[in-house]
């Protein structure tokens, strides 16, 4: 089965012409950080592998509430990380000093440290053969550049939306609108090339808080992705549905504990993909023997309807990029094809140690943190049924909506997902009963084996993903609505 989802080939992205502004940005990055080529070459006179990554961010975060507003610049977190291997382990130095003299001094210190380090006892040799990158410049395409609006325009635009939400019901006690825009600039250099990328992300989170005097509830709409203002447009009907749901949750009941047929909305199906066969196939987990999936390559792990993909090149996907933080060009990775586990997601170190081809999943929270194998945009591929067909098939089940968070257990293959609410369906029709909140737990192979229908819709939702509870990176998850069975409480 060929996965069905919008996915341009990498060559198309590479061939995309940069706008005049992005081309100027790329030229500036090449001019300012061109010296990193010499730094890497100098380091490699003394060590078998060296690389340099410059990363800087800039951005704006606006938060609007009743009687409270903020507008803040995001932390630029600018710096250079230098990587060197002594043939057995990787060592790094990260500095926020980006001028050539300081970087050269840091590189010399790093090389001296690496050469002095014992070759790690029993550890086998680490032979890193950089296959990428080629010389290239990339930038996120945008339809509506956030810079086309002044800050005053943005404040006014999202305050109107917020007020509309706040005034939607007499039981509303607070409404918030959070707007964010970021530009992340990267220069990666190793012995085979120099790549620049300018990734732009835009986000909008709207939350409505309601109270009946006894208890409080909320519902939210989150939009975001790589791109401009076009990725955060919220249709009025979504706002109306959010307001209705928030108020409805005041009379919602806890879901009776049990195993249910469920239809998961894209935020929930994406979280299932993310937690079930996302974290569990990050190959640094293979190296540490934490991932049960390592023993299942080529084996069936779900129904034939299950196709799970990680793809940093999905247009607009919030977790998108063009090269990872170790210089690997992005391309789609099919994790599960027709229910059979294909391969994991790699960083440089684990791919080299395991002797497997790299995927573009080496990501850092910032230059101050090391790269790990991390997801980008992870999702179920589209199926053939309509969403309505999935719902009509629920004889006695739930439509589970608005994932809030999840947690993986790559060793035990347990899964925990917390969602905001679920709607009851009987004989294919909504009963009007709302359950909130909903905790879902399950055993991953059972959850994937029970996937019985996959819809042909598709939505990537923005989020932030941690490794454990740290190393936060922008991440997309989603896909279509899916039907499966899970334990709810």
């Amino acid at each position, binding site marked *: 089965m060929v996965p069905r989802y919008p996915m341009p080939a990498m060559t198309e992205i590479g061939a995309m012409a940069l706008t005049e502004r992005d081309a100027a940005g790329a030229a500036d990055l090449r001019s300012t950080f061109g010296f990193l080529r010499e730094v890497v070459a100098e380091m490699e006179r003394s060590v078998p592998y060296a690389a340099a990554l410059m990363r800087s961010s800039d951005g704006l975060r606006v938060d609007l509430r009743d009687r409270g507003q903020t507008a803040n610049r995001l932390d630029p977190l600018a710096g250079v990380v230098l990587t060197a291997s002594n043939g057995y382990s990787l060592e790094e130095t990260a500095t926020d000093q980006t001028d050539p003299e300081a970087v050269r001094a840091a590189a010399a210190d790093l090389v001296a440290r690496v050469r002095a380090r014992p070759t790690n006892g029993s550890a086998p040799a680490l032979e890193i053969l950089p296959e990428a990158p080629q010389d290239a410049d990339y930038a996120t395409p945008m339809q509506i550049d956030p810079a086309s609006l002044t800050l005053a325009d943005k404040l006014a635009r999202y305050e109107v939306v917020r007020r509309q939400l706040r005034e939607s019901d007499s039981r509303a006690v607070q409404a918030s609108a959070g707007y964010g825009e970021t530009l992340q600039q990267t220069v990666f250099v190793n012995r085979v090339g120099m790549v620049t990328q300018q990734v732009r992300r835009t986000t909008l989170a709207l939350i409505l808080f309601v109270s009946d005097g006894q208890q409080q509830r909320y519902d939210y709409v989150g939009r975001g992705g790589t791109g401009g203002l076009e990725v955060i447009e919220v249709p009025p009907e979504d706002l109306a549905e959010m307001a209705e749901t928030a108020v409805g949750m005041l009379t919602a009941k806890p879901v009776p504990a049990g195993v249910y047929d469920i239809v998961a909305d894209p935020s929930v199906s994406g979280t299932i993909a993310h937690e079930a066969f996302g974290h569990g196939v990050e190959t640094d987990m293979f190296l540490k023997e934490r991932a049960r999936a390592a023993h299942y390559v080529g084996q069936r792990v779900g129904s034939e309807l299950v196709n799970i993909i990680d793809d940093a090149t999905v247009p607009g996907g919030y977790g998108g990029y063009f090269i990872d933080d170790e210089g690997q060009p992005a391309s789609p990775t099919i994790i599960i094809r027709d229910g059979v586990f294909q391969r994991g997601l790699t960083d440089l170190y684990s791919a080299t140690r395991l002797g497997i081809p790299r995927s573009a999943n080496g990501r850092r929270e910032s230059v101050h943190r090391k790269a790990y194998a991390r997801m980008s945009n992870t999702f179920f591929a589209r199926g053939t049924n309509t969403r309505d067909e999935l719902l009509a098939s629920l004889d006695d089940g739930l439509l589970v909506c608005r994932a809030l968070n999840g947690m993986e257990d790559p060793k035990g293959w*347990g899964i925990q997902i917390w969602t905001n609410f679920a709607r009851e369906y009987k004989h294919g029709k909504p009963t009007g009963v709302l359950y909130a909140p909903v905790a879902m737990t399950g055993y991953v192979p059972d959850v994937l084996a029970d996937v019985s229908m996959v819809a042909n819709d598709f939505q990537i939702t923005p989020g932030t993903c941690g490794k454990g509870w740290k190393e936060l990176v922008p991440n997309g998850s989603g896909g279509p609505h899916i039907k499966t069975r899970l334990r709810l409480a």
Partner: protein
Amino acid sequence: MDQRIVDALRAHHGIDDWILRVERTHGVQVYLAGSDIESVRQVSREAYEVEVFNDHPAPAGTDGPATARGGATIPLARVDIENLPRILDDAVTMASLINNPPWSLAGAAAMPDVALADPRLVDAADATAAGLEAADQIRELAQRERTSGVRLSGAELFLTYCDAEIANSQGAEASSTSTRILMEVTLLARGAEDETEYFRQTESRQLADLELTETIRVGAQLARDKLGALAPRTRQGPVVISGEALNQLMSGQVTGLPGALVFQAMARTAYENLSRFELGASIYGDARPIGDLVTMRANAQRPFGVGSYRWDSDGTPAHDLLVIEDGILRARPATLRYAQYLGVPATGRPGVAEIGLGRTARADLLVDDEPVLEVLDFSAPNVEPLTGDFGMEIRVGYETGKGGRRAISGGSVTGNLFEAMANARFSAESQGFAQFAGPAAIRFESLQVAGED
């Protein structure tokens, strides 16, 4: 303090007030994959942040004062310092568009001495040596567990030293030094047919507080016990939550917000109409509490507490604040701005949540006619601070009854923290974590357990 920045802030006509914060950090990060060193990283950073305030007429049609105060927080990269005039112009433009009720900065104040730094981590070379030494100790401790089928999967140690300074336009000035350690360790246990893991991420300010020997010993035990563990029975009933699981219930680790009790008590939460607590009233609402009543302090002066500090981001001195006494809300932890809005004392960002102990021995919390579920570790902390609702998967627990004790893993415990606290008993024994210190265990009389039917 960088005088160039101070001078630029003072000279700008559009800035009515300002705060300058500086942090100089250096540290070492040691990564183990199995027992091998995967990577050693040295990290340093000098971070500046200015917060500027602009007072301007409130927009027409606004209720309240005629003047509005706008603020903008601008973190600076090193290169930004060369472009300070332009950046401050932008910051003032941002602040002039923001409309908040006026509030004022505080002037110079005496800051308490709070122990925050491990002297072993002050020097970068010493910190690197200490990090590698701790990694060796983890390897040795894990090696000792090999005879019982437990091995090290990986570990990470981040040791960071920080020099911080703050100054503001009202004359406040202070500095502090602190250290912070983050440790992550994963152990694997091998059984006849299966493998299980123990994962722990913990933070401290002193190396000694990592308690490596105890952490590895307990972790190995939990990983071993998880082999062959069963899911719990589905039921509504008593659940004892202890150890790390109780920390997960009381802390706010995933959302970045404080724990639910602290969140509900905070002045900001009240100002935003989101607090269910009222000053002087029972935190249990209309419910009549049974069992032990909650007493909670927000202690930012707790020695070597991860949530402790000398001064917060407004320059407010650290407080040790009695927040809840015998179930009654006595004070709201209030940062400067929200303290002024609500007319309560400014006590700064909440520190470590310290919950008073009970009188029942931990072992006695498990005594019952029916088997009692005790949870020691959830998969992840997951408590909604707004509603108090929680639902967490059981990583490791035990069901204790007349038939003995069996290990539990899988399934979930769900409930509402505020309702559950109204019928709970606290252990007499204590424990401490980064953001929470209090009983070693709490018995909740009625929580939903979902597992095997």
